[in-house]
Protein backbone atom coordinates (compact mmCIF):
# COMPACT_ATOMS: atom_id res chain seq x y z
CA UNK A 1 0.00 0.00 0.00
CA UNK A 2 2.80 2.30 0.85
CA UNK A 3 4.28 1.69 -2.55
CA UNK A 4 1.17 2.68 -4.47
CA UNK A 5 0.71 5.77 -2.33
CA UNK A 6 4.17 7.00 -3.13
CA UNK A 7 3.77 6.28 -6.79
CA UNK A 8 0.56 8.25 -6.87
CA UNK A 9 2.40 11.12 -5.33
CA UNK A 10 4.98 10.82 -8.06
CA UNK A 11 2.31 10.85 -10.72
CA UNK A 12 0.81 13.99 -9.27
CA UNK A 13 4.11 15.47 -9.65
CA UNK A 14 5.54 17.15 -6.70
CA UNK A 15 8.49 15.07 -7.52
CA UNK A 16 8.89 15.20 -11.23
CA UNK A 17 12.20 16.81 -10.51
CA UNK A 18 13.17 13.77 -8.44
CA UNK A 19 12.43 11.54 -11.43
CA UNK A 20 14.75 13.66 -13.47
CA UNK A 21 17.42 13.49 -10.77
CA UNK A 22 16.87 9.75 -10.51
CA UNK A 23 17.48 9.26 -14.23
CA UNK A 24 20.79 11.04 -13.89
CA UNK A 25 21.94 9.52 -10.62
CA UNK A 26 20.81 5.90 -10.95
CA UNK A 27 23.30 4.62 -13.52
CA UNK A 28 26.23 6.38 -11.91
CA UNK A 29 25.46 5.12 -8.41
CA UNK A 30 24.60 1.60 -9.55
CA UNK A 31 27.72 1.25 -11.62
CA UNK A 32 30.09 2.88 -9.17
CA UNK A 33 28.85 0.93 -6.16
CA UNK A 34 28.87 -2.28 -8.21
CA UNK A 35 32.46 -1.53 -9.04
CA UNK A 36 33.23 -0.99 -5.39
CA UNK A 37 31.28 -3.84 -3.81
CA UNK A 38 30.30 -6.25 -6.57
CA UNK A 39 27.10 -6.72 -8.52
CA UNK A 40 24.73 -7.87 -5.80
CA UNK A 41 25.88 -5.80 -2.85
CA UNK A 42 26.59 -2.73 -4.99
CA UNK A 43 23.19 -2.74 -6.66
CA UNK A 44 21.48 -3.14 -3.30
CA UNK A 45 23.53 -0.28 -1.85
CA UNK A 46 22.68 1.95 -4.80
CA UNK A 47 18.98 1.17 -4.42
CA UNK A 48 19.21 2.01 -0.70
CA UNK A 49 20.98 5.27 -1.46
CA UNK A 50 18.35 6.25 -4.00
CA UNK A 51 15.59 5.29 -1.57
CA UNK A 52 17.24 7.50 1.03
CA UNK A 53 17.29 10.26 -1.57
CA UNK A 54 13.59 9.78 -2.25
CA UNK A 55 12.75 9.85 1.42
CA UNK A 56 14.88 12.94 2.02
CA UNK A 57 14.45 14.64 -1.33
CA UNK A 58 13.92 18.05 0.20
CA UNK A 59 17.48 17.88 1.47
CA UNK A 60 18.91 17.25 -1.97
CA UNK A 61 18.13 20.74 -3.19
CA UNK A 62 20.63 22.41 -0.93
CA UNK A 63 23.44 20.03 -1.71
CA UNK A 64 26.37 20.99 -3.85
CA UNK A 65 27.13 17.42 -4.89
CA UNK A 66 24.10 15.22 -4.17
CA UNK A 67 25.31 12.24 -6.19
CA UNK A 68 28.60 12.25 -4.33
CA UNK A 69 26.68 12.39 -1.08
CA UNK A 70 24.51 9.47 -2.15
CA UNK A 71 27.58 7.48 -3.09
CA UNK A 72 28.68 7.85 0.52
CA UNK A 73 25.21 6.85 1.71
CA UNK A 74 25.33 3.73 -0.45
CA UNK A 75 28.85 2.97 0.66
CA UNK A 76 27.77 3.16 4.29
CA UNK A 77 24.90 0.81 3.61
CA UNK A 78 27.20 -1.65 1.83
CA UNK A 79 29.69 -1.60 4.68
CA UNK A 80 26.89 -2.21 7.14
CA UNK A 81 25.76 -5.18 5.07
CA UNK A 82 29.27 -6.54 5.02
CA UNK A 83 29.55 -6.04 8.77
CA UNK A 84 26.27 -7.81 9.45
CA UNK A 85 27.25 -10.97 7.63
CA UNK A 86 28.07 -13.46 10.32
CA UNK A 87 30.66 -15.48 8.51
CA UNK A 88 33.76 -16.74 10.29
CA UNK A 89 37.09 -15.29 9.38
CA UNK A 90 38.63 -17.26 6.51
CA UNK A 91 41.39 -19.68 7.30
CA UNK A 92 44.90 -18.71 6.45
CA UNK A 93 45.15 -21.53 3.96
CA UNK A 94 42.03 -20.53 2.08
CA UNK A 95 42.86 -20.88 -1.58
CA UNK A 96 39.66 -19.56 -3.14
CA UNK A 97 41.23 -16.41 -4.51
CA UNK A 98 44.07 -18.38 -6.02
CA UNK A 99 41.58 -20.62 -7.76
CA UNK A 100 39.76 -17.61 -9.16
CA UNK A 101 43.03 -16.20 -10.39
CA UNK A 102 43.84 -19.46 -12.11
CA UNK A 103 40.53 -19.62 -13.95
CA UNK A 104 41.17 -20.15 -17.67
CA UNK A 105 38.88 -17.25 -18.62
CA UNK A 106 41.19 -14.19 -18.60
CA UNK A 107 38.33 -11.78 -18.07
CA UNK A 108 37.27 -13.60 -14.91
CA UNK A 109 40.77 -13.71 -13.54
CA UNK A 110 41.06 -10.02 -14.34
CA UNK A 111 37.97 -9.32 -12.26
CA UNK A 112 39.48 -11.29 -9.40
CA UNK A 113 42.62 -9.16 -9.60
CA UNK A 114 40.48 -6.03 -9.87
CA UNK A 115 38.79 -7.08 -6.65
CA UNK A 116 42.14 -6.94 -4.90
CA UNK A 117 42.79 -3.29 -5.79
CA UNK A 118 42.12 -0.64 -3.16
CA UNK A 119 38.53 0.53 -3.37
CA UNK A 120 39.21 3.90 -4.97
CA UNK A 121 41.57 2.47 -7.57
CA UNK A 122 38.99 -0.17 -8.34
CA UNK A 123 36.14 2.30 -8.78
CA UNK A 124 38.31 4.64 -10.84
CA UNK A 125 39.44 1.91 -13.24
CA UNK A 126 35.91 0.51 -13.40
CA UNK A 127 34.22 3.82 -14.15
CA UNK A 128 36.83 5.66 -16.22
CA UNK A 129 38.63 2.96 -18.13
CA UNK A 130 35.86 0.39 -18.30
CA UNK A 131 32.73 2.48 -18.63
CA UNK A 132 34.04 5.70 -20.15
CA UNK A 133 33.07 8.14 -17.42
CA UNK A 134 35.01 11.39 -17.23
CA UNK A 135 37.56 11.94 -14.50
CA UNK A 136 35.51 14.85 -13.19
CA UNK A 137 32.36 12.72 -12.94
CA UNK A 138 34.15 10.06 -10.93
CA UNK A 139 35.88 12.74 -8.86
CA UNK A 140 32.54 14.13 -7.78
CA UNK A 141 31.41 10.64 -6.79
CA UNK A 142 34.49 9.89 -4.75
CA UNK A 143 34.85 13.37 -3.31
CA UNK A 144 38.34 14.00 -4.65
CA UNK A 145 39.93 15.87 -7.54
CA UNK A 146 40.19 14.79 -11.17
CA UNK A 147 43.97 14.37 -11.00
CA UNK A 148 43.57 12.08 -8.02
CA UNK A 149 41.15 9.97 -10.05
CA UNK A 150 43.70 9.93 -12.88
CA UNK A 151 46.31 8.68 -10.44
CA UNK A 152 44.00 5.93 -9.22
CA UNK A 153 43.30 4.87 -12.81
CA UNK A 154 46.97 4.86 -13.72
CA UNK A 155 48.02 2.83 -10.70
CA UNK A 156 45.10 0.41 -10.96
CA UNK A 157 45.69 -0.20 -14.66
CA UNK A 158 49.38 -0.64 -14.06
CA UNK A 159 48.70 -3.45 -11.64
CA UNK A 160 46.20 -5.12 -13.93
CA UNK A 161 48.60 -4.89 -16.89
CA UNK A 162 51.32 -6.41 -14.75
CA UNK A 163 49.02 -9.30 -13.94
CA UNK A 164 48.27 -9.80 -17.62
CA UNK A 165 51.95 -9.77 -18.48
CA UNK A 166 52.74 -12.27 -15.76
CA UNK A 167 50.04 -14.57 -17.00
CA UNK A 168 51.11 -13.98 -20.61
CA UNK A 169 47.59 -13.14 -21.79
Amino acid sequence: MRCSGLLETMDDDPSASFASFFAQAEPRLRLALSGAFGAELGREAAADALAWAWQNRERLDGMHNPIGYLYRVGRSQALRDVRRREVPCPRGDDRGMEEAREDPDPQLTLLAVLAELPERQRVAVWMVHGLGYRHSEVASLLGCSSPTVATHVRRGLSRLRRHLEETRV
Partner: protein
Amino acid sequence: MSELHDDLIARAVRRAADGVAPITLAEVTARGRIPDPVDDDESTTNGAAPQGPSTGGPVMVIDLERERAAGTTGTAPAPRRRWPAMAAAAALLVVAAAVGWAVANRDEPVDVAPVETPSAADPLERATRAVDEFIGVYNSGDPAAVADWFADLPNPLDLTKHVDPAYQWADDRWTRIGPCRIQDPSVVCPIRREDDFHGAAGLSLEDDYAFRFDDEGLLVRLVLLEGDPWAEHHAFRADFRAWAEAQHPGAVGSWFPPPGSYSAELADMPTAEGMPAALELLDEFIAQSDRWGP
Protein backbone atom coordinates in the same frame (compact mmCIF):
# COMPACT_ATOMS: atom_id res chain seq x y z
CA MET B 1 50.64 -5.15 -26.12
CA SER B 2 49.59 -2.58 -23.56
CA GLU B 3 46.67 -1.52 -25.75
CA LEU B 4 45.52 -5.11 -26.03
CA HIS B 5 45.67 -5.45 -22.28
CA ASP B 6 43.78 -2.20 -21.77
CA ASP B 7 41.11 -3.37 -24.17
CA LEU B 8 40.80 -6.69 -22.36
CA ILE B 9 40.42 -4.88 -19.04
CA ALA B 10 37.75 -2.55 -20.43
CA ARG B 11 35.81 -5.43 -21.93
CA ALA B 12 35.93 -7.38 -18.68
CA VAL B 13 34.55 -4.38 -16.79
CA ARG B 14 31.80 -3.73 -19.31
CA ARG B 15 30.77 -7.35 -19.29
CA ALA B 16 30.53 -7.36 -15.51
CA ALA B 17 28.71 -4.01 -15.42
CA ASP B 18 26.21 -5.14 -18.03
CA GLY B 19 25.12 -7.84 -15.64
CA VAL B 20 23.92 -5.34 -13.02
CA ALA B 21 20.25 -4.75 -13.70
CA PRO B 22 19.06 -1.12 -13.70
CA ILE B 23 17.19 0.07 -10.63
CA THR B 24 13.68 1.36 -11.27
CA LEU B 25 12.06 4.34 -9.65
CA ALA B 26 9.22 2.12 -8.47
CA GLU B 27 11.69 -0.19 -6.77
CA VAL B 28 13.23 2.74 -4.95
CA THR B 29 10.01 4.37 -3.80
CA ALA B 30 8.74 1.02 -2.55
CA ARG B 31 11.60 0.57 -0.15
CA GLY B 32 11.06 0.91 3.57
CA ARG B 33 12.61 3.72 5.45
CA ILE B 34 16.36 3.90 5.07
CA PRO B 35 17.92 5.05 8.32
CA ASP B 36 19.66 8.35 8.21
CA PRO B 37 23.29 7.54 7.60
CA VAL B 38 24.36 10.00 10.27
CA ASP B 39 21.65 9.72 12.93
CA ASP B 40 21.58 5.94 12.76
CA ASP B 41 25.22 5.43 13.49
CA GLU B 42 26.01 4.99 17.14
CA SER B 43 29.44 6.45 16.63
CA THR B 44 28.14 9.83 15.58
CA THR B 45 26.44 11.01 18.71
CA ASN B 46 27.73 14.51 18.14
CA GLY B 47 26.41 14.57 14.61
CA ALA B 48 29.85 14.68 13.09
CA ALA B 49 30.69 12.49 10.17
CA PRO B 50 33.56 10.25 11.11
CA GLN B 51 36.01 9.00 8.57
CA GLY B 52 35.22 5.35 8.13
CA PRO B 53 37.56 2.50 7.52
CA SER B 54 38.82 1.92 4.04
CA THR B 55 37.56 -1.11 2.25
CA GLY B 56 40.94 -1.34 0.60
CA GLY B 57 41.68 -4.86 -0.36
CA PRO B 58 39.46 -7.62 -1.61
CA VAL B 59 36.06 -6.54 -0.32
CA MET B 60 34.53 -6.43 -3.81
CA VAL B 61 32.16 -9.33 -4.32
CA ILE B 62 32.24 -10.28 -7.94
CA ASP B 63 29.46 -12.56 -9.04
CA LEU B 64 31.56 -14.84 -11.16
CA GLU B 65 28.62 -17.07 -12.00
CA ARG B 66 26.76 -14.07 -13.37
CA GLU B 67 29.81 -13.07 -15.34
CA ARG B 68 30.04 -16.53 -16.79
CA ALA B 69 26.41 -16.44 -17.80
CA ALA B 70 26.86 -13.03 -19.39
CA GLY B 71 29.92 -14.20 -21.20
CA THR B 72 28.16 -17.09 -22.85
CA THR B 73 25.32 -15.10 -24.32
CA GLY B 74 25.71 -14.31 -27.96
CA THR B 75 28.88 -16.27 -28.34
CA ALA B 76 29.61 -19.89 -29.05
CA PRO B 77 29.52 -21.67 -25.71
CA ALA B 78 32.82 -23.16 -24.77
CA PRO B 79 33.22 -26.11 -22.43
CA ARG B 80 33.57 -24.65 -18.97
CA ARG B 81 34.34 -26.03 -15.59
CA ARG B 82 31.74 -24.64 -13.21
CA TRP B 83 33.24 -25.61 -9.89
CA PRO B 84 36.25 -23.28 -9.93
CA ALA B 85 34.06 -20.26 -10.53
CA MET B 86 31.65 -21.33 -7.82
CA ALA B 87 34.52 -21.90 -5.44
CA ALA B 88 36.01 -18.55 -6.38
CA ALA B 89 32.71 -16.75 -5.91
CA ALA B 90 32.22 -18.41 -2.55
CA ALA B 91 35.75 -17.57 -1.54
CA LEU B 92 35.29 -13.95 -2.54
CA LEU B 93 32.12 -13.82 -0.50
CA VAL B 94 33.99 -15.23 2.46
CA VAL B 95 36.75 -12.67 2.02
CA ALA B 96 34.22 -9.88 1.81
CA ALA B 97 32.45 -11.14 4.87
CA ALA B 98 35.75 -11.42 6.66
CA VAL B 99 36.43 -7.77 5.96
CA GLY B 100 33.03 -7.06 7.40
CA TRP B 101 33.85 -9.19 10.40
CA ALA B 102 37.06 -7.28 10.84
CA VAL B 103 35.23 -3.99 10.55
CA ALA B 104 32.69 -5.10 13.12
CA ASN B 105 35.37 -6.13 15.55
CA ARG B 106 37.61 -3.12 15.26
CA ASP B 107 35.22 -0.88 17.12
CA GLU B 108 35.73 1.70 14.47
CA PRO B 109 32.90 3.73 13.05
CA VAL B 110 31.34 2.64 9.81
CA ASP B 111 31.72 5.21 7.11
CA VAL B 112 28.77 7.50 6.88
CA ALA B 113 27.79 10.25 4.54
CA PRO B 114 29.35 13.59 5.28
CA VAL B 115 27.28 16.43 6.56
CA GLU B 116 26.73 18.64 3.55
CA THR B 117 27.07 22.28 4.38
CA PRO B 118 26.15 25.29 2.30
CA SER B 119 29.77 26.34 2.22
CA ALA B 120 30.62 23.26 0.17
CA ALA B 121 29.19 25.10 -2.83
CA ASP B 122 31.50 28.05 -2.30
CA PRO B 123 33.89 28.34 -5.27
CA LEU B 124 36.65 29.60 -2.99
CA GLU B 125 36.28 26.63 -0.69
CA ARG B 126 36.33 24.22 -3.61
CA ALA B 127 39.38 25.89 -5.09
CA THR B 128 41.13 25.88 -1.71
CA ARG B 129 40.40 22.18 -1.35
CA ALA B 130 41.91 21.55 -4.79
CA VAL B 131 45.03 23.50 -3.86
CA ASP B 132 45.36 21.63 -0.57
CA GLU B 133 44.98 18.34 -2.37
CA PHE B 134 47.61 19.30 -4.92
CA ILE B 135 49.97 20.28 -2.11
CA GLY B 136 49.35 16.93 -0.44
CA VAL B 137 50.20 15.08 -3.64
CA TYR B 138 53.28 17.22 -4.21
CA ASN B 139 54.51 16.66 -0.67
CA SER B 140 54.11 12.91 -1.13
CA GLY B 141 57.18 13.10 -3.38
CA ASP B 142 55.74 11.14 -6.30
CA PRO B 143 56.60 13.04 -9.51
CA ALA B 144 54.22 10.88 -11.58
CA ALA B 145 51.33 11.70 -9.28
CA VAL B 146 52.20 15.39 -9.52
CA ALA B 147 52.35 15.15 -13.31
CA ASP B 148 48.80 13.81 -13.32
CA TRP B 149 47.66 17.20 -12.08
CA PHE B 150 48.87 19.05 -15.15
CA ALA B 151 46.82 19.58 -18.26
CA ASP B 152 48.55 18.84 -21.56
CA LEU B 153 50.05 22.13 -22.63
CA PRO B 154 52.26 23.06 -25.59
CA ASN B 155 54.88 24.52 -23.27
CA PRO B 156 54.61 22.68 -19.98
CA LEU B 157 57.85 24.12 -18.61
CA ASP B 158 56.11 27.30 -17.56
CA LEU B 159 53.79 25.19 -15.51
CA THR B 160 56.15 22.61 -14.13
CA LYS B 161 59.20 24.68 -13.28
CA HIS B 162 57.87 25.30 -9.79
CA VAL B 163 57.65 21.61 -9.10
CA ASP B 164 60.79 20.42 -10.87
CA PRO B 165 61.88 16.98 -9.64
CA ALA B 166 65.10 18.61 -8.37
CA TYR B 167 63.02 20.26 -5.67
CA GLN B 168 61.48 16.97 -4.75
CA TRP B 169 64.89 15.35 -4.51
CA ALA B 170 65.65 18.03 -1.95
CA ASP B 171 62.46 17.08 -0.09
CA ASP B 172 60.69 20.30 -1.00
CA ARG B 173 57.63 20.75 1.20
CA TRP B 174 54.76 23.16 0.58
CA THR B 175 52.54 24.53 3.30
CA ARG B 176 49.58 26.80 2.77
CA ILE B 177 50.07 29.43 5.45
CA GLY B 178 46.88 31.43 5.08
CA PRO B 179 43.52 31.66 3.41
CA CYS B 180 43.30 31.68 -0.38
CA ARG B 181 41.48 34.28 -2.42
CA ILE B 182 39.86 34.18 -5.82
CA GLN B 183 41.59 36.31 -8.41
CA ASP B 184 39.58 35.26 -11.39
CA PRO B 185 40.30 32.95 -13.14
CA SER B 186 42.86 31.81 -10.60
CA VAL B 187 42.92 31.10 -6.92
CA VAL B 188 45.80 32.73 -5.07
CA CYS B 189 47.21 31.13 -1.94
CA PRO B 190 50.11 32.06 0.35
CA ILE B 191 52.58 29.19 0.32
CA ARG B 192 55.69 28.47 2.35
CA ARG B 193 58.28 26.30 0.64
CA GLU B 194 61.04 24.59 2.56
CA ASP B 195 63.58 22.15 1.17
CA ASP B 196 66.79 20.58 2.39
CA PHE B 197 69.00 22.26 -0.20
CA HIS B 198 68.08 25.87 0.47
CA GLY B 199 67.17 25.04 4.06
CA ALA B 200 70.84 24.26 4.78
CA ALA B 201 71.48 27.94 4.15
CA GLY B 202 68.55 29.00 6.28
CA LEU B 203 66.45 29.88 3.26
CA SER B 204 62.80 29.22 2.69
CA LEU B 205 60.24 30.95 0.50
CA GLU B 206 56.95 32.49 1.44
CA ASP B 207 54.95 33.96 -1.38
CA ASP B 208 51.61 33.96 -3.15
CA TYR B 209 51.12 31.32 -5.78
CA ALA B 210 48.33 31.63 -8.35
CA PHE B 211 46.76 28.32 -9.37
CA ARG B 212 44.44 28.08 -12.34
CA PHE B 213 42.46 24.91 -12.92
CA ASP B 214 40.52 23.89 -16.02
CA ASP B 215 37.05 22.35 -16.04
CA GLU B 216 38.53 18.94 -15.40
CA GLY B 217 40.32 20.21 -12.32
CA LEU B 218 43.72 20.02 -14.03
CA LEU B 219 46.29 22.75 -13.51
CA VAL B 220 46.82 24.94 -16.55
CA ARG B 221 48.76 27.71 -14.85
CA LEU B 222 50.92 27.89 -11.75
CA VAL B 223 52.81 31.12 -11.19
CA LEU B 224 54.33 33.19 -8.45
CA LEU B 225 52.68 36.56 -8.18
CA GLU B 226 56.00 38.17 -7.37
CA GLY B 227 57.63 36.88 -10.52
CA ASP B 228 60.97 35.67 -9.22
CA PRO B 229 61.36 36.22 -5.48
CA TRP B 230 64.36 33.92 -5.33
CA ALA B 231 67.11 36.56 -5.33
CA GLU B 232 68.72 35.30 -2.15
CA HIS B 233 68.29 31.71 -3.29
CA HIS B 234 70.09 32.54 -6.54
CA ALA B 235 72.95 34.10 -4.58
CA PHE B 236 73.24 31.00 -2.43
CA ARG B 237 73.19 28.70 -5.47
CA ALA B 238 75.91 30.76 -7.17
CA ASP B 239 78.13 30.69 -4.07
CA PHE B 240 77.62 26.98 -3.66
CA ARG B 241 78.43 26.24 -7.29
CA ALA B 242 81.57 28.37 -7.21
CA TRP B 243 82.76 26.68 -4.02
CA ALA B 244 81.93 23.19 -5.31
CA GLU B 245 83.76 23.76 -8.59
CA ALA B 246 86.81 24.99 -6.69
CA GLN B 247 86.77 22.18 -4.15
CA HIS B 248 85.70 19.33 -6.41
CA PRO B 249 86.76 20.26 -9.92
CA GLY B 250 85.45 18.01 -12.64
CA ALA B 251 82.66 16.53 -10.61
CA VAL B 252 80.33 19.45 -10.40
CA GLY B 253 79.62 20.38 -14.00
CA SER B 254 77.24 17.52 -14.63
CA TRP B 255 75.19 18.39 -11.57
CA PHE B 256 73.86 21.54 -13.18
CA PRO B 257 71.72 21.91 -16.30
CA PRO B 258 73.41 22.71 -19.62
CA PRO B 259 73.16 26.42 -20.45
CA GLY B 260 69.84 27.36 -21.96
CA SER B 261 68.14 24.08 -21.17
CA TYR B 262 66.24 25.30 -18.16
CA SER B 263 64.22 28.35 -17.22
CA ALA B 264 66.02 31.22 -15.50
CA GLU B 265 64.63 30.18 -12.14
CA LEU B 266 66.24 26.77 -12.37
CA ALA B 267 69.34 27.39 -14.48
CA ASP B 268 71.63 27.72 -11.46
CA MET B 269 70.13 24.93 -9.40
CA PRO B 270 71.36 21.32 -9.43
CA THR B 271 69.19 19.04 -11.55
CA ALA B 272 67.27 16.11 -10.13
CA GLU B 273 70.21 13.92 -11.09
CA GLY B 274 72.76 16.22 -9.49
CA MET B 275 70.84 17.09 -6.35
CA PRO B 276 71.73 13.98 -4.28
CA ALA B 277 75.46 14.63 -4.76
CA ALA B 278 75.00 18.33 -4.09
CA LEU B 279 73.19 17.60 -0.85
CA GLU B 280 76.11 15.47 0.32
CA LEU B 281 78.46 18.43 -0.01
CA LEU B 282 76.21 20.97 1.63
CA ASP B 283 77.42 20.45 5.19
CA GLU B 284 80.99 20.95 4.08
CA PHE B 285 80.07 24.11 2.20
CA ILE B 286 78.02 25.56 5.03
CA ALA B 287 80.79 24.83 7.52
CA GLN B 288 83.25 26.84 5.43
CA SER B 289 80.87 29.64 4.53
CA ASP B 290 80.82 32.96 6.33
CA ARG B 291 77.59 33.99 4.68
CA TRP B 292 75.30 30.96 4.66
CA GLY B 293 74.02 28.87 7.50
CA PRO B 294 70.83 27.90 9.25
